[in-house]
């Protein structure tokens, strides 16, 4: 009979459990290979756009959990002055360096099978240190083991306590259009 009380045995059982769980979770995880997030602010005075190719995404195809993370300082603007103001005045990137979303695909879709799925993701969007419950629609395309996620949604600056000074209020839209384009492959 195996003596489970010896420290060596405990250790090996635990190690085995850890390996099993890690292995199991890795087997169903898809991580981003090539992803872009961009946003637009449209006002009669000025159009502002920026994009980041450093957004990271993870999808668990078994639980249909999904997560996105992007460093605010990775957003590139055509106008570098705007980029500086974006980080310093609006996102306050030194205080809140990351923007994140974590959620779950509501529809019971099988993301291991090829197809095009219109989905809704419910979860929490964290911008500027303020977390909001959101329901965001998207289109998931699965083909040859690659999951592609496309989504357009709006972010209200006021909802995330991003205040626009009166001096520039005409130049920045109250609602920002955000576009996410992510390709994910099985995580190795």
């Amino acid at each position, binding site marked *: 009979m195996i003596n489970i009380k010896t420290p060596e045995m405990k250790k090996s059982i635990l190690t085995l459990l850890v390996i099993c769980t890690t292995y199991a*979770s890795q087997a169903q995880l898809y991580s981003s290979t090539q992803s872009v997030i961009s946003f637009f602010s449209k006002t009669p005075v000025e159009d502002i756009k920026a994009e980041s190719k450093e957004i990271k995404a993870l999808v668990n195809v078994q639980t249909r959990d999904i*997560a996105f*993370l992007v460093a605010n300082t990775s957003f590139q603007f055509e*106008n*570098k002055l705007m980029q500086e103001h974006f980080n310093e005045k609006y996102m306050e990137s030194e205080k809140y360096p*990351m923007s994140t979303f974590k959620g779950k695909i509501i529809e019971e879709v099988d993301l291991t099978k090829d197809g095009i799925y219109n989905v809704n993701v419910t979860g929490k969007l964290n911008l500027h240190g303020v977390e909001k419950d959101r329901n965001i629609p998207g289109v998931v395309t699965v083909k040859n083991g690659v999951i592609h996620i496309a989504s357009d949604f709006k972010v209200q600056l006021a909802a995330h306590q991003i205040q626009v000074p009166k001096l520039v209020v005409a130049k920045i839209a109250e609602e920002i259009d955000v576009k996410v384009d992510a390709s994910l492959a099985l995580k190795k």
Partner: protein
Amino acid sequence: MKKTIYLFYWLLFSGIVSAQDDLLNMLSSEAPQKPTAVYATFKSTRLVNLQSNETMKAKHLDFRIQHRFSSMNINKDNNYGLYDVFGLDGAVIRLGLEYGITDKLMIGLGRSTAGKTYDGFVKYQLLQQKTKGMPMSVVLFGNTGISTQAFADKNRQNFETSRLSYVFQTIITRKMNDYFSFILTPTMVHHNLVETKETPNDIFALGIGTSIKISRSTRFNIEYIPRLNGRNQPKNGDKPTYYDAIAIGFDIETGGHVFQLHFTNGNGLIEQQFIARNPSQFNLTQLRFGFNISRTFSFDK
């Protein structure tokens, strides 16, 4: 034993904590935060008169208007400033076009009314303060000024090289936190031609200054540029005595524009003038109101 307990707890709670958190945590741990460049140490490429560590980014053009009114003349002889409307009757102005060649290298051209002077400068960001590691920014600055004013004494033998003057600065800055930034600027000014034999051609000075954030769009700035030599110039006849420049000002940023409003005794808008040849004292008679307007254009596509 402790390790086992930790492992046990980890196993227990990893099941309870929602898998969503796990995904986000996995992402954050996969992408550890790299030290990033510290931005917005100052609002503009100038503190008030002094150059700050900020440079124009690549393919960005700054059209800059630097304007100082005349002395405020707040004294009894001038009806307590009303005679000249606190100096608004007169002005010294510099118009400049300043351009970023790369994110670290910028050049500028300008023309000042004082001495009918053209100037060209190069500013290079040698070191950039980082969130971790590099504690400060170091920027090198050099300019050449060419005065095109007619020589005072046309009968004397005049050399065209007498029109030239140079400035070298090492600009050292540190953004302490979101609210405070400091600047230290060792400076050398060289004038090819000086007024008297006793006046040194080379003036050394140490610019010091601070910028305090008031709101996201406004900052309060103070600077003082004491000279380290040439302070005891002879006060013979019509040769002026020079004083150290001090300035107090506000930055108001409105997106593409930065408006800098200030009071200073600094006369002239390039370093050779307001550091080495400033004839005004810091008092209510000789203090002047001034402003800089900076408008940035992006040619980046």
